[in-house]
């Protein structure tokens, strides 16, 4: 993910856009801001950061109201429970309880990484599952090492 600092006018434009996107789908909002930052960075890398270029980029991107009007309103669909991620978290917690079986922990970890790399579901649940499964893997590895040493 790129977080290049843009000229002040563009940063202000993106901040305005972020505010205009309040009430729209959260993931779409975050991806839109990031993608537009990359768009602007690309033009500036190509054409330079002169005032004229910055103004042209903003004109071509369009008014924040126009962009916000084309975004998906946040609705029940985006707030619905991502059951796949609930089960992922359950599996990760189970792997913590069953850390003597490292295969479960490794499986939960791989599943969490795959879900995080994808574009669907609840990021919060996926991150929580990742953290729990990492702890499980660490515990399982520690257990294996302690058995091996003893």
């Amino acid at each position: 993910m790129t977080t290049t600092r843009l000229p002040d006018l563009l940063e202000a434009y993106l901040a305005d856009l972020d505010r205009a996107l309040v009430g729209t789908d959260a993931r779409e909002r975050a991806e839109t801001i990031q993608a537009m930052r990359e768009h602007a960075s690309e033009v500036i890398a190509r054409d330079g950061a002169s005032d004229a270029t910055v103004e042209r980029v903003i004109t071509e991107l369009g008014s924040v109201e126009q962009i916000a009007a084309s975004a998906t309103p946040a609705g029940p669909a985006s707030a619905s429970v991502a059951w796949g991620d609930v089960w992922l978290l359950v599996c990760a917690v189970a792997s913590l309880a069953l850390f003597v079986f490292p295969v479960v922990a490794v499986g939960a970890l791989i599943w969490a990484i795959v879900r995080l790399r994808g574009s669907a579901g609840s990021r919060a649940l996926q991150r929580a599952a990742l953290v729990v499964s990492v702890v499980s893997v660490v515990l399982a590895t520690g257990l294996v090492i302690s058995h091996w040493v003893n």
Partner: protein
Amino acid sequence: MEPTPASVLTQLRKGTVDFCVLACLRSGPAYGLEIADRLRQDKVLFDSDGTLYPLLSRLRQQGWVTTTLEPSPVGPPRRYYRLTQSGEAALKVFIETWGRFAADVTTTIEDHS
């Protein structure tokens, strides 16, 4: 309310522009600015470049495109959008349906003009 060219375009874009973006990616993956440059050639598809990005996010969430970050020779990494198999299947259905729809619209308008 009297229709204006802008209001008619807004209605026509709904449900069609998404597939124009997918069609744009049929020739290969492209990054945001590249897609915007391609689509900007015909101004009626988009009000502005910025409206492309919520749409690309929706296409990604639908699983019709995937994204990868790749190094750029001129600046920060580029996010490339790539058509998926389900995106290609959706585009195929749209193209078949659009052909019949557009032909009917044209015929109807010409028959009654």
